[in-house]
């Protein structure tokens, strides 16, 4: 019982902070918006997806990739926030209180989930403005966004573990971002993975990130005409693969992070 109320108290605390440091949310938006614009207008004309050469097909293909990349950036936020709390001595304060053990981390990840949701809303509006359209029913589109949020939530637990493992908030930010670039680029997010050399193609097809992107493309109806879905299992069953990946990541990283928290010294 106290696990739920304590988590809510901590989530509320982090949301109040977010409201008082709005630049965090704004900076969090600039990067994905920049990517939308860059890929749509700069690369868009020269990247071929499926059998189509149309700019519109690439725009629609692209958005799921940018949405998925954006939700994984919550990792850096969670990591930096927790490292900052450690650094400032707040974690010590919390650990000396008779509260549920995982609540500090759960509260933080829930607050990050809210931030991710806000970011996605703004980003979706920008995407529509540059020409993104969905071709499935509203329920499926919503399911796509729910899947993105679940995946982002899972990644914030990786961030929590990073935040508890480094000495400074700055290290948590860079430690939370560095590995995300290869993860998101060696995937189907920005290009058709079928066109990669076979070594990279296999990595891309089994990359958890690709599963989420593929699932969203299906749920949004954004697969380009003539697109050949790879035979790898996660690509054939992307929704299931995304769910499994998310749950596994949450279970593993939540366990590790809570264990680390209990022994943490600020």
């Amino acid at each position: 019982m106290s696990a739920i109320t304590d988590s809510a108290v901590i989530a509320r605390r982090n949301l109040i902070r977010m409201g008082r440091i709005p630049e965090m949310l704004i900076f969090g938006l600039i990067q994905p918006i920049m990517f939308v614009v860059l890929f749509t207008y700069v690369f868009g004309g020269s990247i071929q997806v499926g059998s189509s050469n149309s700019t519109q097909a690439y725009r629609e293909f692209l958005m799921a990739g940018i949405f998925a990349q954006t939700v994984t950036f919550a990792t850096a936020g969670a990591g930096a926030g927790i490292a900052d709390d450690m650094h400032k001595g707040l974690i010590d304060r919390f650990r000396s209180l008779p509260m549920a053990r995982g609540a500090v981390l759960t509260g933080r990840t829930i607050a990050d989930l809210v931030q991710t949701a806000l970011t996605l809303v703004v980003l979706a509006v920008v995407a529509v403005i540059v020409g993104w359209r969905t071709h499935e029913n509203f329920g499926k589109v919503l399911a796509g966004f729910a899947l993105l949020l679940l995946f982002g939530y899972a990644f914030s637990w990786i961030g929590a573990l990073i935040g508890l493992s480094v000495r400074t908030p700055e290290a948590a930010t860079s430690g939370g971002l560095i590995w995300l670039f290869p993860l998101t680029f060696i995937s189907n997010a920005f290009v058709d993975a079928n066109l990669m050399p076979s070594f990279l193609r296999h990595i891309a097809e089994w990359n958890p990130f690709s599963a989420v992107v593929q699932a969203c493309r299906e749920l949004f109806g954004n697969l380009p005409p003539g697109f050949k879905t790879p035979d790898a299992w996660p690509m054939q069953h992307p929704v299931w693969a995304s769910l499994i990946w998310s749950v596994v990541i949450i279970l593993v990283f939540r366990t590790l992070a809570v264990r680390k928290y209990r022994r943490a010294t600020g």
Partner: protein
Amino acid sequence: MPGAIYAEGLVKTFGDVRALDGVDLDVPEGTVLGLLGPNGAGKTTTVRCLTTLLRPDSGRAVVAGIDVLKQPDAVRRSIGLSGQFAAVDEYLTGRENLQMVGQLYQMKAKAAKERAAELLEQFHLTDAADRPTKTYSGGMRRRLDLAAALVVSPPVMFMDEPTTGLDPRNRQQLWEVIKQLVSGGTTLLLTTQYLEEADHLAHDIAVVDQGKVIAQGTSDQLKARTGGERVEVVVHEREHIRTAVEVLAGFGKGETTVEEHMRKLTTPVTGGAKLLAEVIRELDTRGIEIDDIGLRRPTLDDVFLSLTGHVAEAKDEENGKGAVQ
């Protein structure tokens, strides 16, 4: 029956560093123990072990009658922690901080709100209550930090260097707050590098150096260990020095030292103020005019020096800070 805070043989090592090397403590209920020592002596590590933040490698600790290693959660309900490492959230207001802490002590939201208002009043923070604590002065932040430790009026309190970094006026204010608190019956363990602070606030003082308690007792007992009191006399006329030495020889417990040019005589004595009065009468009877006379007691600085062979000054960063173990 062990006291409200009890530790036996606490050992904690960080890599090669033996931060605690067998710390024993016993603080009777309702008293204040001052843990005195330089940076790196093991004060903070001791507090961290007693407040469940750090698990000692070996040893036993009991706080408020509860075994710290076996029932850490029960201990957390009975303690308040304040000081250099237990912070408040700088983006939350003072009120929000106290409410949050109250709720995490498992108070209902309404009760936590009322308690926060009470504490803000008590610590003279009502005017600043709805400002983010980022805007607070150092003294205000310390007061809020202390208030956060008092949300549930815990029977046992720990304060780690509560006044480090404060200016003298703010330090004085905080001392008053702490004294009030203790007069209400709270048991308090306080760490400090300020000898004056331990002298001022603590019933008992434990001197810590290199992870061990090297001496413990009241301030007076510790001072007595360092050679006790001395009478210092400054005579008006230089030719009276020899007579004065004779007079002091009748009262002293050792050799009188004479600083000729200052006409100052110093003799170790026992007997306190009563003896001082007798010395004054005898000097007067002999017709010796004096410029100054006084009973000098060793300061805790003297005590620390004589116990450890080095002065109590900052060496390096207190251990226990840094990365995750």
